[in-house]
């Protein structure tokens, strides 16, 4: 099972959401997609998309520099 990292640091709406979706489309079942970004609204929106897509949100972590990480299992 692959671990795919999507780096959208510095990107703004709607790019983090689009890149997450693209990575999830490409991923195989069981793969983990880890999205790393700085856009705060996207941090709330990506979990909504994950829910709509019926996928599993593993965790969300924040770093001190304002960077967030969201891990999703397909």
């Amino acid at each position, binding site marked *: 099972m692959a671990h795919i990292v999507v780096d959208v640091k*510095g*990107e703004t709406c*709607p790019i983090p*959401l*689009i890149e*997450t*979706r*693209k990575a999830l489309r490409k991923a195989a079942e069981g793969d983990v997609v880890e999205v790393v970004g700085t856009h705060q609204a996207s941090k709330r929106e990506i979990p909504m998309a994950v829910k*709509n*897509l019926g996928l599993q949100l593993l965790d969300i972590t924040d770093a001190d520099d304002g960077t967030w990480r969201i891990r999703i299992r397909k």
Partner: protein
Amino acid sequence: MADKATIIVHSGDYDKIYSALIIGTGALAMGMEASLYFTFWGLQRLKKGGLERGPLSKMHMLGLGKWMIRRRMQKANVAKLETLMREFRDLGGKVIACEMTMEIMGVSKEDLREDWIDEYGAVGAYVQEATDSKITLFI
């Protein structure tokens, strides 16, 4: 069947094309289907080289306002309309061009970015799309 968003793009204004494409790509990213139906002034933006050409809907000020907004958008790292259109299509979004507008305004298929357009349709195409859509907007 997935939920669907259908958006009429009537305005050709720069900022409103942004709204349409951001909502369209957003819907696709959230797992919905999405169609953009370009008509009237919106259709002008499907002309070759036309996507970024629209005026601002407010404070255009002969282009000065648009220049300022574009500069601020660049600083904020906002994606170009061309990029959003490419993403919209890559994620499976559908683009419909209004045939009546083409006729009235004397626009031929060769004038348009045919590589972006999935269908040429009239009101029936929109109504059919909208009937099974959860979201429909007129921009």
